[in-house]
């Protein structure tokens, strides 16, 4: 099973500067293709079977999401369900357009997730750099503590966090959400970025020091740019954390700043009934832009990680 086929097609941009200084030699594309040609039929078959089985698992529910969104309200509960909606309708989608509140939720979600991503990358970068380039006692234990900090029941933290944020007047603000989510993304991001910084040669840092650059400057103008793909990858992961959370958003954000997950529940899971088509339609509509953005940034997701977390 050849493991490197995609590289020539999508060179993760971040590797270029690293590659010039790192000793890893880039094999010539021609030789890779030769390896490909030798890919055996058995391997191809296995690959296809995997794609069909696991891909089916991944995509059939997405199909069902779409099919439900297109089903008229009075037919959603028919049994047996129709695998293809008999009279598909865009009613559910049309209903979304007139629901202003949904756009408020969407805006809140985007604001919270983006700020979380940026802040998380910044904080994690400092922390990861410290873990990567310095040696001190307790460093390793601290790294594991950062990881372990995420094993506690967040519902338990919620009661106290609520009163803490309340005391500082931060309830019902973006700040409360951003601070919480940023903290919860630290383990992944710190570890990812630490791995990334490990691949940046110390010589580079030393050279800059000899030239008289301050340590902060070295981080900001040499290390971070080199680590850009890793930062983007970490940022995308942090984004998803903020994007997906339900219970913190529900409790800390208050009605004005509520994000999509509680917002969708609020809107479509009513006291009397669940508006399935509308809920599904709304989920699709809000996921799509994010999915497209992620697909566009895919090469960073993979490429940024390539040089980084894999060494963790």
């Amino acid at each position, binding site marked *: 099973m050849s493991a490197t086929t995609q590289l020539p097609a999508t060179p993760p941009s971040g590797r270029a500067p690293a590659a010039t200084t790192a000793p890893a030699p880039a094999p010539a594309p021609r030789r890779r293709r030769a390896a490909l040609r030798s890919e055996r039929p058995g391997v191809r078959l296995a690959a296809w079977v995997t794609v069909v089985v696991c891909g089916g698992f991944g995509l059939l529910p997405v199909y069902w999401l779409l099919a439900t969104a297109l089903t008229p309200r*009075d037919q959603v509960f028919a049994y047996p369900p129709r695998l293809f909606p008999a009279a598909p309708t865009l009613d559910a989608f049309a209903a979304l357009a007139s*629901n202003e509140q949904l756009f408020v939720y969407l805006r809140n979600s985007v604001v919270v997730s983006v700020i979380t991503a940026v802040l998380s990358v910044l904080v994690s970068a400092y922390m990861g750099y410290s873990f990567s380039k310095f040696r001190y006692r307790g460093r390793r234990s601290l790294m594991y503590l950062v990881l372990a900090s995420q094993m506690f029941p967040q519902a338990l933290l919620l009661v106290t966090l609520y009163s803490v944020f309340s005391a500082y007047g931060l309830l019902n603000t973006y700040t409360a959400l951003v601070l919480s989510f940023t903290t919860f993304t630290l383990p992944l991001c710190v570890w990812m970025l630490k791995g990334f910084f490990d691949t940046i040669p110390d010589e580079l840092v030393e050279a800059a020091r000899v030239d008289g650059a301050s340590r902060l400057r070295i981080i900001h103008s040499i290390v971070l740019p080199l680590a850009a793909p890793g930062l983007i990858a970490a940022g995308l992961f942090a984004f998803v954390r903020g994007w997906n959370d339900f219970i913190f958003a529900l409790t800390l954000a*208050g*009605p004005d700043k509520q994000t999509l997950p509680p917002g969708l529940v609020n809107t479509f899971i*009513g*006291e*009397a009934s669940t508006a399935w088509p509308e809920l599904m339609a709304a989920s699709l509509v809000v996921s799509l832009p994010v999915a497209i953005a992620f697909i566009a940034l895919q090469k960073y997701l993979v490429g940024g990680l390539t040089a980084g977390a894999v060494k963790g």
Partner: protein
Amino acid sequence: MTTPIPHTALTRRHLFQLLGLGAGTAALAACAPSAGGSAGTAATGGGAKTDFAFSSWSLTEETAAPAIQSLLGAYGDDNGVSIEEVSYPYNEYISQLTLQVQGGQFTGAAHVDVAWLGSLAALGKLQDLGPLAEGVDYTEAGLTAAQFDGVQYGLPWNIGAIGLVTNSAMLAKAGVDEFPVTIDDFTTALTKIKKLGDGVIPYAASTKAAQLKDILIWMETFGSPLLDGSTVTIGDDASVEAVTWYKELYDKGLIAPDVDRFDARSLFAQGRTPIYDDAIVGRDAVVTESPDKDLAGKLAAQSRPVLAAGDTPRALVWGGAIAVVDGEGAETAADFARWVTSDPDAAREYFEERGLPPATESALALPEVAADEFGAQFSERITATATSNPFWAYPQYAQIESAIAEQVQAVLVGSKDAKSAMAHAGETAQGLID
């Protein structure tokens, strides 16, 4: 709804008994103000109107929001104030509201399920709305439902009950012409309905934990008081019989697994069940969701079958009230609460939008309301004999209900027998009350 309710008096007496117990617990817990002790009394006087906040789970719900928002708009315009809207999903509403009230984040008018009044009142921040209720012709049942510890913590808005809703056409098709009066006849009727085939569920009773508390009303039907003074009676023969009967229906496929109120409504709307438990609030949902355009005409409300003919049918009080949380804007919020629950025009508008029964005598007499046959039937056959859940008197009632629900569920799925499960449920509930 004008007839005094026989059981509520008993319930109220219970509440008074509990007052002593509540105070005892409070002292034991060494908490500063005893429950309700610090509650202010609503001022009825004039004074300048101020902005305030109004919270309701319905404010963002697609189907319910427009009706409420239009009322808020009307009050706001008339009085020159702006009303801040606060909303949480129904299932999380009371926990979130509790947090907000306790943290001082929320003051103003709060739409509450009457079941929640006890928990909210325990925070000691609800106003006594008794003086406001004077001179308004709220129904006796409504006033009682919106009280806790004998204090009028809420003004009744839409008070009704949860009872059996049926599809008369389906029942007729199954050969059930007279709705059964006794439990034995009911079981026989369900067996008949089962013969309709086609995946029909004879009775879409709640079997998911969230609404499994519906079983409590059947326990009462079988003769268990649930609570005698401050002694939990769950575990007694009647409660065990009720659960055994439920399990029998479950095993025979007369009730179905994985059903909560939402599912039951959907099944009913699809014509896959002729009987389920609901309050009037569910009517809109089943009618609009149904492919059967005549469903509204087939709806009927039925008295819950009883153990022996002649017994009083049981039903659970269910309804919405408005409570006022002391603090900024509370005075105007209280005025709003009275207006929205008693103003005839507001009542008419809200009834027309949502079909929920109002809680004042004069609004009930409105021609629009009186013309609602199903509503009238519901009041007569169900609401008339409705009683509150005795556990609502305790702030821990939700925990009590879920402890019971979990045990009943264990019986349904066959991991425990009814007797030991109910004994365990009773012990747990007792532990929570003590």
